[in-house]
């Protein structure tokens, strides 16, 4: 079992004829992902990587039954591509692009409200259910099927967490989700925690947070409210960033108050989440939870 994507997920790739899309869709196909079609406006009717290419997402859905999109379109085109995906009522969109204008993202978020479509990202490595489906750019060779769910707000740190689950007697992963590194994102920790709690094969969850916003605090409140809790190991990056450093968004301080990485860790801890200070301590906590027999 897994969450959000598995071997039955029928994937369409928006922007399939681009270089990066070609490189990564080929790898996803080799991995066994059920990619059924691609979309590139004005290239409808062509074949690419052995897949039919359509002009619109709607056609791709009608002709090939696609229900999820992995989107490799460049940042300025994202809001238009999103509109198509939402209007075609896809279940899931994974948006890889980084650097989407804030205003476009505000528009995307309002499109998603009340729609059937869930967004993962933008600026994400995507989602992977080991051995079944890879929607994104994950280095698939580090993944192995298993029982730990991973949710991360930091693309590259996700890979660290994956490696940690392998170091812990190869516990492996049920599903790994990169929520995206951007200021505004689609699904958040709460959505993913909810799904992982419903998935009977996920036995424990790793969540990787970072400075900026209140995603971790909100997740802590949600976790506190759960009746049946699965163990969660939490990590928050950003202790070494001095207060007010321009690395963050200045508006955060006024809109949310100054929330340090330390504050976030405390909120997680209070909710009963196991907090580690170094990402490479995760495997030790996993071994405590699942001792070798």
């Amino acid at each position: 079992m897994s969450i959000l994507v598995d071997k039955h997920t029928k994937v369409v790739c928006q922007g399939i004829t681009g270089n990066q899309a070609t490189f990564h869709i080929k790898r996803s196909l080799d991995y066994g992902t059920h990619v059924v079609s691609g979309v590139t406006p004005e290239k409808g009717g062509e074949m690419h990587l052995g897949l039919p290419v359509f002009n619109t997402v709607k056609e791709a859905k009608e002709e090939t039954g696609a229900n999820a999109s992995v989107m490799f379109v460049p940042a300025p085109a994202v809001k238009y591509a999103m509109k198509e995906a939402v209007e075609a009522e896809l279940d899931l969109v994974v948006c890889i692009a980084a650097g989407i204008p804030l205003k476009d993202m505000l528009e995307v978020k309002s499109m998603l409200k009340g729609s059937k479509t869930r967004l993962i990202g933008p600026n994400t490595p995507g989602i992977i259910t080991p051995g079944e489906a890879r929607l994104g750019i994950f280095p698939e060779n580090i993944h192995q099927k298993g029982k730990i769910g991973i949710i991360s707000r930091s693309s590259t740190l996700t890979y660290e967490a994956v490696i940690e689950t392998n170091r812990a007697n190869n516990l492996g992963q049920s599903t790994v989700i990169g929520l995206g590194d951007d200021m505004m994102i689609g699904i958040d920790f709460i959505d993913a925690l909810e799904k992982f709690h419903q998935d009977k094969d996920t036995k424990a969850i790793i969540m990787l947070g970072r400075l900026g916003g209140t995603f971790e605090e909100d997740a802590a409140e949600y976790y506190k409210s759960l009746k049946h809790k699965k163990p969660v190991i939490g990590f928050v990056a950003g202790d070494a960033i001095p207060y007010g450093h321009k690395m963050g968004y200045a508006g955060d301080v006024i809109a949310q108050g100054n929330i340090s990485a330390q504050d976030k860790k405390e909120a997680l801890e209070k909710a009963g989440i196991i907090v580690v200070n170094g990402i490479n301590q995760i495997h030790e906590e996993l071994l405590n939870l699942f001792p070798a027999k």
Partner: protein
Amino acid sequence: MNIHEYQGKQILSKYGIVIPKGRIAYTPTEAKRAASRVSLRGPWMLKAQIQSGARAKGHFLEERAGKKGGIRLIKSRRDIIKNAEQMLGATLVTPQTGPKGKLVSRIYVEAFTKVKRVFYSALVIDRMVPAISLLVAELGELDINELALKHPEKILKIDLPLNQGVGLEQIREVLEFLKLSSRSARSLKRFINGLHKAFLENDASMIEVNPVGVMANGQLIALDTKISFDDNALYRHKDIAQLQDDYEADERELQAAKYKFTYCEFDGNIGCIVNGDGLAMAVMDELQDKGYGAACYLNVKGGVDKDKIASGIKIIMTNPKVEGILINILGGFLRCNLIAEGIIAAASEVGLNVPLVVRFEGTNKDEAKEILQHSKLPVIISDEMDEAADAVIRAIEESD
């Protein structure tokens, strides 16, 4: 990207926001001419145009610039030239510039505006809603960040709908919160809607108008403003992009930005090269736990061009504050071998004079390690992030 106060005011005035009459001056003579254009008898405000808050609380490094700060109230015409001479070409240090300060190359000459009272206003993005939010407050002695920390209840926050202006109810809410008379209602509505439109049409990421002045007739006037723009949207605002003042930006940051990388400086002595902001934070946290700190970090993101990566690495190699380099790359989009090739290319151009530790994981990591092993560069290769951090620290301590 940030712009100067006078440029921000020009933008706001296009959206119906009232600003004091003002002109920009690069020389004392221009300042004198500007003064007579904006007001016949004065008084005037002379305002140093550097991109920093708290300019009034600042001081100049040069003795010739006098004891007064970067914002000066001038009552006589004669003093315009004198003060312009003092400020132009001098270095203004404020609580926000750091001890090096910033060079004043132009001053804004404004007609002094008498106001009855002032308040703080801003439009920011609240990423959690998400929405563009209006913030207003009476600051008193505190700055807005201090107020947000100590008395968040003293800031009124209203989330604005994306595609329409503010309603009457919200105007009433602001009037009441700030205890403004209903005489200001029309001006307030125009002010907020102007800000909102300016924000959206120019892809701002934050607009502060602080202070907003309330004149005797109730009309609002923008006395100072700071506008930041969304770097990711500059491609559709060529007019704004060209306002970038290269004097204001750090030279290394500018270089990095040219290759679409991010570069930030800190107080430590280790140069970090990573792909991903979260990873950068985690690496810096790791160093801090061990009693060390980053001098700077470069985020090469999902770079795919070897030459650009090499140029990025050179920025770190040539930073004199860097006593050791820690490269931690988790290949996904980015292929590790490109980093390895970039290291060799950069080292062959500028030389590698400090210890360098690399840790590769993910896409093409074995190929990357092999490339470095064959290069004969004195590179230490490590397999874990904490080991890599230990290795660079040890190497720095040994080379001392």
